[in-house]
């Protein structure tokens, strides 16, 4: 990929600010080994396979894709929870790819994470106060006698009753637990919050509460979100720009409305057409692109365009032999496809 194409792939052209996070050529392979004593490397899971992405201050970048497309791995590499196999990760202009120890911890204060499962991500043996206050103890940003009022302030901020300081996680519902996770992530006043499927374990009515809370907090603290979900309608709702991942690569990226109206990559089209629309008449106008089968194994991804075995538009041999590069379409939109979809290919909004 040329330098220019890389640049386009990562950021909208009108953006002149310095990105908060800049990923270049990020790869993460997990080794597959055989043998008990002499472990021999027999292959790799190509979880993330060359991703360029810029996240600008104050924006929300959504990341969608099916299970196993590498979206969570990408988030964890960004957080430096995994070491990247290749590529660079910059945070506020500083290369953090190889930081470790104290220097890494210092950087990590500014990036926090909210996890999917509000049942597994909170220690059941700790009180809520101690869970939310843990970042203060680890980083020592608040004197010990100030921790309790600070924590209670955070609890109030996310809509929890501060009097529940001494309760345990099992005494809270799923939505309330997710609020605890949000409060914990806010404790150190981070710049970036990575939300890994923050609402997919919750009821629809509670999802809306949490999404609104995240929006309010973003406005109040000027937060930047990297928002991961498999539900395109949730991602579109919260995100300024949406990146679609398939088998370790970004295949399309665009502002939410553009993506909804004019998806270019057939995979985006398939994802869009699979989302149920709570409107029976509109649902009938929708053109369905039903994908056959499951995502192929990332151990040995298909040649050329990785989507070609499932793609309804694939034309052999080109899609099989030649890997498409990300190229621009509408303003802010890039997609990697040899035979992109036409405008309004999935949902004809004009007729309803």
């Amino acid at each position, binding site marked *: 990929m040329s330098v220019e194409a890389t640049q386009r792939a990562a950021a909208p052209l009108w953006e002149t600010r310095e990105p908060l996070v800049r990923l270049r050529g990020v790869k993460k392979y997990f080794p597959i080994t055989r043998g008990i004593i002499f472990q021999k490397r027999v292959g790799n899971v190509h979880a993330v396979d060359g991703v360029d992405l810029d996240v600008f201050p104050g924006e929300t970048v959504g990341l969608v894709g099916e299970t196993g497309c590498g979206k969570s791995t990408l988030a964890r590499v960004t957080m430096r929870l995994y070491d990247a196999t290749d590529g660079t990760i910059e945070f506020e202009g500083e290369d953090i790819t190889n930081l470790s120890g104290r220097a890494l911890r210092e950087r990590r204060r500014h990036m926090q994470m909210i996890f999917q499962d509000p049942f597994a991500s909170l220690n059941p043996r700790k009180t809520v106060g101690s869970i939310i206050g843990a970042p203060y103890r680890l980083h020592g940003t608040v004197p010990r006698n100030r921790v309790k009022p600070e924590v209670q302030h955070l609890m109030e901020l996310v809509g929890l009753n501060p009097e529940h300081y001494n309760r345990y996680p099992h005494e809270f519902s799923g939505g309330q637990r997710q609020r605890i996770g949000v409060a914990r992530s806010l404790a150190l006043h981070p710049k970036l919050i990575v939300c890994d499927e923050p609402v997919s374990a919750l009821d*629809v*009515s509670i999802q809306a509460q949490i999404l609104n809370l995240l929006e309010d907090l973003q406005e109040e603290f000027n937060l930047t979100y990297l928002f991961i979900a498999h539900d395109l309608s949730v991602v579109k709702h919260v995100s300024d720009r949406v990146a679609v991942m398939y088998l370790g690569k970004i295949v399309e990226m665009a502002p939410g409305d553009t993506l909804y109206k004019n998806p270019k990559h057939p995979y985006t089209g398939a994802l*869009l057409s*699979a*989302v149920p629309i*709570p409107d029976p008449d509109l649902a009938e106008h929708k053109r369905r692109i039903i994908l056959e089968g499951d995502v192929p194994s990332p151990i040995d991804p298909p040649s050329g365009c990785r989507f070609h075995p499932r793609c309804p538009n694939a034309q052999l041999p080109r899609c099989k032999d030649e890997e498409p590069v990300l190229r621009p379409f509408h303003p802010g939109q890039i997609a990697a496809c040899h035979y992109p979809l036409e405008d309004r290919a999935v*949902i004809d909004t004009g007729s309803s």
Partner: protein
Amino acid sequence: MPEPLLEVRDLKVHFPTEDGLVKAVDGVSFTLQPGETLGVVGESGSGKSVTFLTVMGLVTTDQAVIEGEVLFRGQDLLKLPKDEMRNIRGSKISMIFQDPMTSLHPFYKVGYQIAEAIRTHQQVSKHEAHDQAVEMLRKVGIPKPEERASQYPHEFSGGMRQRAMIGMALSLNPDMLVADEPTTALDVTVQAQILDLIDRLKAEFNASVVVITHDLGVVAEHCDDIQVMYAGKIVEFGNRRDIYYGPHHPYTWGLLGSISRLDSTSKERLQPIKGLPPSLIFVPPGCAFHPRCPYAFDRCRTDVPELLPVDGHHASACHLSLADKERIFQEEVMVRR
């Protein structure tokens, strides 16, 4: 009107616990016609699953106080002895669950598990049952069914496990299939595949289907009638046009306002329902929804509203007058969409 396949009359399921009586289902009545698809929508703890677990005979008088009638082809299932109920369950009514990971046994091959279900109800040889199981896997769209039948559940992906479960549920050609959150654990692309599969098989096997879900989006494309449940009661019932284009209950409005819609043009705020679902031990007096309802007035706090039909079919349990409901929906709910 033909004889309904299933008629539930004033069903109550109360679980005695140390903390008090949990009124999981509290007076639910509905009918299901042959060949119909019914959507049951509500939050966690609204009683939607317990209602159908009771219909299936999976909640029994050993665990709960059960009142009312569950008439299946005119026969009261609640009065049947256990072994007769076991004959009906699986062959006449079957159920698929949310989590296909935990509903298949990890020790046994998938084909064997389906064949076992067949052999429980039909006098066939092991070999014939296995062939039927392979045929079922083919019908639910699993590639290379012969090979797949001799694999273990961990070798299947989530979507394929759910397909195998559907295959098992339909292997005895039941009259009624209950799908309890069949797609919640799956990706949207797989969800679309599974819902289409259920639609297709429903036509092929001529079965009635009940889809239980918390997501009003899921049922919009697939259900004929929809019932909305809250705190153990049905609060609104109607066909899908009633529910999506003219709902009468503030709770249904709240559910619709909570959905992030792909087709919304601006980045408008969602309108979630305030607060949390009530504890089923201390259900609020009057209308159980009144503490969360922005339109509640005095009567809502004391009188329990009845589920009253407006035009013979569409019914809602709310004290607001019909004119008010239509006005509020047009002026305050519709404009936000």
